[in-house]
């Protein structure tokens, strides 16, 4: 069918083609092109911010003008560590964060197990979506919802408990723990679900065939296998609870957490607020170091 093939004239490759070829031959150049912008941004905006926070913790304020004095001192850190009220708030914050984490495991593990191993495979995606969607509902609105839930006398929980003659939780530590558990639950369910999905079903059957009752199977087979996923989830629930200052302000009554104190002091004494903010950082560093030893972070 072809009558005459056009003669192909060899022309020098156009600039675009040469540029493309040059980039192909030099992966380092491509990498620099890709990295420069995001790396500059993250270092300039974020890393510098973290370092400023760290340095500011060792500054002080002029008592008369309230301006930050750039002289290095350990006074702030010393004051934080020796004032019982601050140490108490730190201990309380860790206790609340730990309780929230345990509750998230107790509530989240059965949900994840049901989603991964019991629910029919068709409905799994729907269940995951149902668990994930509230994660994207406004944080503040969810806390506001819990204000309505726990209110003394007129709250929903108080209403539910009336027939049993029990009072609602009211505002305080219990309300804070409930609300934080609510907020961070999906952060526990999802990693555990992913961990359970990777675990072969045959292990459950094998355990059952060897005579283990379900409770024993969960305790001796399932939990040890998905432990790294539980630890990963706990990093989120623990860290997020540790740094919260809005939930406790809205539903916590007079409860003080580390975050509150930072929020109350940062306008008047920034260096002091920075020193307090280092507490959750230090706790997280210790926590992550402990977690690292379990090897859970390698699965992230």
């Amino acid at each position: 069918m072809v009558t005459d093939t056009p003669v192909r004239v060899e022309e020098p490759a156009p600039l675009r083609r040469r540029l493309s070829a040059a980039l192909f031959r030099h992966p380092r150049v491509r990498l620099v092109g890709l990295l420069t912008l995001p790396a500059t941004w993250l270092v300039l905006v974020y890393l510098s911010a973290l370092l400023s926070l760290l340095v500011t913790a060792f500054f002080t304020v002029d008592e008369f003008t309230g301006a930050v004095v750039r002289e290095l001192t350990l006074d702030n850190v010393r004051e934080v560590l020796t004032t019982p009220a601050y140490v108490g708030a730190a201990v309380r914050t860790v206790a609340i964060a730990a309780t929230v984490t345990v509750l998230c495991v107790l509530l989240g593990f059965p949900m994840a197990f049901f989603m991964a191993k019991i629910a029919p495979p068709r409905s799994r995606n729907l269940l995951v979506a149902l668990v994930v969607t509230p994660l994207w509902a406004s944080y503040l609105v969810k806390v506001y919802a819990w204000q309505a839930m726990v209110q003394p006398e007129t709250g929903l929980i108080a209403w539910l408990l009336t027939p049993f003659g029990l009072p609602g939780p009211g505002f305080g530590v219990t309300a804070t723990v409930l609300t934080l558990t609510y907020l961070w639950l999906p952060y526990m369910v999802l990693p555990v679900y992913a961990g359970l999905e990777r675990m072969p079903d045959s292990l459950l059957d094998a355990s059952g065939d060897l005579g283990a009752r379900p409770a024993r199977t969960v305790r001796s087979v399932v939990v040890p296998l998905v432990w790294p996923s539980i630890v990963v989830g706990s990093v989120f629930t623990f860290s997020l609870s540790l740094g919260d200052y809005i939930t406790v302000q809205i539903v916590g009554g007079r409860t003080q957490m580390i975050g509150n104190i930072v929020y109350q002091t940062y306008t008047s004494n920034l260096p002091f607020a920075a020193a307090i903010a280092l507490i959750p950082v230090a706790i997280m560093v210790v926590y992550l170091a402990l977690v690292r030893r379990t090897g859970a972070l390698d699965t992230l």
Partner: protein
Amino acid sequence: MRGSRRARWTFGAMMALGLAFVYVPLVVIVINSFNASTVFAWPPKELTTRWWVETAHNPSVRAAVVTSVEVAVVATAVALVLGTLLAFALARYRFFGQQAMSLLVVLPIALPGIVTALAFRTGFRTFLGLELSIWTVAIAHATFCVVIVYNNAVARLRRTGLAPEEASMDLGADGFTTFRLVTFPLLRGAMLAGALLAFGLSFDEIVVTLFTAPPGVTTLPIWIFQNLQRPNQAPVVNVVAAVLVLVSVVPIYLSQRVAGESTGGGRI
């Protein structure tokens, strides 16, 4: 174990309980927005749509929505560019400091909120010498939104691999044509999903926003926060809260449609 009826029922009941725990407060918010009384008391005695009409015409709410949208648009645009570039760099290359880089991306949402918030404020004012403005809010939001776009894009890049691009180049396309006809179309869905979720995250953010916004810059969450304790504003706050609950479903639904992935949407 899966055959055990009692175990199935126990876990099923726990699942139902968990979902109830997750959704009851959200339902309460929506119902409460129709509460005729200005004081919250469950159950509401009388329902009305009056507050919805009033909220729609509330000028301060409208102004706050506009501010939130402005911040979210800028933050999303920046995060989209930075997150995508970073996804290519970290998914396709091996280099010194790669671990540190991937840690630095997640740090803004992994560190306790109060730390990130105070760090931004201190960094902006001392290190960068910026006065707080709507721009500092947008810059802070962009920084923690990068990880959302990054997670979505990197998951897609890992899944598609290099084969489609190699095929394109074997067939004679140069790097630019390959990007335009193969790489970008494959990545587009994930980028769009990341952008939608980043927008949603920025629109809702309060923890960092309170620390990086000067007085006078009022995003919608800041507006809610300021009006939470004012009894006469309660009905309007209720409606805004209900709208936010209903609207929050949109980005996650759309992102699952365009990305076709059922995950935490990059937040986890």
